[in-house]
């Protein structure tokens, strides 16, 4: 069991309780020990940065300083919310990159008797830790109920793969980490073309029409690919796609009903946890039907399966880039 510093973020206490519960449920069997930062504060989301840059970074840095104080030999902060993850990573990055800026933020922290050493801690998202630290083998060991037959659209949103200061993801636009994790759970993973497109972010609050447009683009694309469930890694994405799906439907006179779940919820199901302990039922678009299919492992109705296109002898496609291509380039 290795320990990590845990920064849950405000949503985990309110709108994303399901995420909190399921994170706790899956970390245990994977050997991820989470030590919550004591007395953490809000990361300011994207809002504080808009208002006042220095206080915004000071607000974030207080959490980093607390984490450094309480680190107890641990080096990694896990943040399950993409916005929190990026804010923490960003503050660390700029404080390290721009020494004058780092000193300024530390001067502010000093007013509260605190200090953070830039670069001391690694800020990572839970997904990255599961893929790159724990490893998929360990995940596979824990799978007792493979998610066979469940067509999942993996959806990462923006702030996890971009700008990716730590270069932890395979790509800034089409990373395959979540796909690989879901495949390891036995699910049928769709190559979701909009997997890192925007969920609308705070536009649901300040310009709903634009937000509905973005949500519509995602949901309709997922629907066209016969998606059973959209899986997210971020409370904001989950909220926008799930809670606003109804309003978006009203706006566009459509009737989409695609459940949106956290990846940890599905991991929990695959690990054999009870649905109730994973926060199921708190979603607006019910996932009960989709999940019930997995639980009874009913084979998928034939008509739902994607119709295999008859291959005409067309022109050959270029081969897809492999992991080795990436590593070879890094060496060049």
């Amino acid at each position, binding site marked *: 069991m290795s320990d990590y510093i845990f920064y849950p973020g*405000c*949503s985990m*206490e*309110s*709108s994303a*309780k399901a995420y909190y519960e399921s994170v706790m449920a899956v970390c245990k069997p994977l050997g991820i020990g989470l030590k919550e930062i004591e*007395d*953490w*504060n*809000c990361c300011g*989301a994207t*809002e*504080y*940065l*808009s*208002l*006042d*840059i*220095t*206080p915004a*970074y*000071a*607000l974030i840095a*207080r959490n980093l300083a607390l984490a450094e104080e309480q680190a107890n030999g641990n080096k990694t902060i896990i943040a399950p919310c993409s916005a929190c993850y990026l804010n923490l990573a960003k503050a660390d*990055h*700029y404080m390290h*990159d*721009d020494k004058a*800026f780092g000193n300024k*933020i530390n*001067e*502010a922290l*000093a*007013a*509260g008797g605190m200090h953070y050493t830039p670069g001391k801690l690694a800020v990572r998202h839970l997904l990255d830790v599961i893929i790159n630290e724990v490893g998929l083998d360990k995940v596979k060991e824990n799978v007792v109920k493979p998610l066979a037959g469940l067509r999942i659209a993996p959806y990462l949103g*923006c*702030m996890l793969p*971009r*700008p*990716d200061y730590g270069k932890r993801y395979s790509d*800034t636009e089409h990373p395959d980490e979540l796909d690989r994790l879901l495949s390891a759970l036995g699910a049928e993973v769709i190559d979701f073309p909009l997997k890192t*497109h*925007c969920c*609308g*972010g*705070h*536009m649901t*609050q*300040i*310009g*709903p*029409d*634009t937000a509905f447009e*973005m949500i519509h683009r995602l949901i309709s694309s997922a629907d066209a690919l016969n998606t059973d469930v959209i899986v997210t890694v971020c409370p904001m994405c989950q909220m926008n796609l799930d*809670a606003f799906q*109804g*309003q978006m439907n009203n706006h566009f006179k459509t009737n989409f009903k695609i459940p949106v779940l956290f990846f940890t919820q599905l991991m929990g199901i695959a690990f054999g946890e009870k649905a109730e302990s994973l926060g199921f039922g*708190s*979603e*607006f678009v019910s996932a009960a039907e989709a999940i019930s299919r997995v639980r009874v492992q009913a084979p998928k109705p034939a008509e739902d399966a994607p119709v295999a296109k008859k291959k005409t002898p067309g022109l050959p496609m270029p081969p897809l880039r492999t992991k080795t291509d990436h590593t070879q380039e890094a060496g060049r």
Partner: protein
Amino acid sequence: MTDVVSVLDPHTSHTKREDSILLREVSLRTPGESHVDMCIQCGTCGGSCPSGSAMDHTPRAIFAMLRAGMRDDVLNSNTPWMCVSCYFCTVRCPQNIHITDVMYTLKNMSLEARKPTMPVASPPPTAWGLKNSSIDPKKYNPTAADFSKTFIWMVENFGRSFEIGLAGVHNVRHFITRLPNMTPMAIGMLTKKGMSPLPPKRIKGMDQLGKILQRAKELESS
């Protein structure tokens, strides 16, 4: 005889010096090396922007305006406020300009230009009452800034945010006509998600946080 300069568009009368001052100010206020002066006007940012349709100028145009020293036009623009921080522009920019971070800086500057009449750490007013400023309140969409302010008001008072209160306050203020539409969702939040309509408990280090933020604000304005 008419002075030639006076018949020209006011922007053409900017001296080169003024232009570079604006660009440099943005560059200095953005953490790290923002490369804001390196724009080649290719439009990758404008093409990538998911909320581009809601913007009055594309980000690319904003960079051109910064270079031209068109301060008021930039700070009146809704462009930075429509930014959803998706970072598509930042990772795709061929000149490595930290566009999303520059947008944050522009939001800061835009608010600062309105500061005399605008208290920060309280639920802000919806109208700005700008009298002695060249900033035109009519051209400006205060919704986004207001949302940020409401959010921060909560953070500065509780140390944490709570979505339902935030959304409630915000929507009553700005989208009163949408409320009937919103009601089922709000009820859903309370019942399905089991969310509490009450503000969160204050963090223990509220005093400490207050001091830190106070100092940070002083540093910001110095």
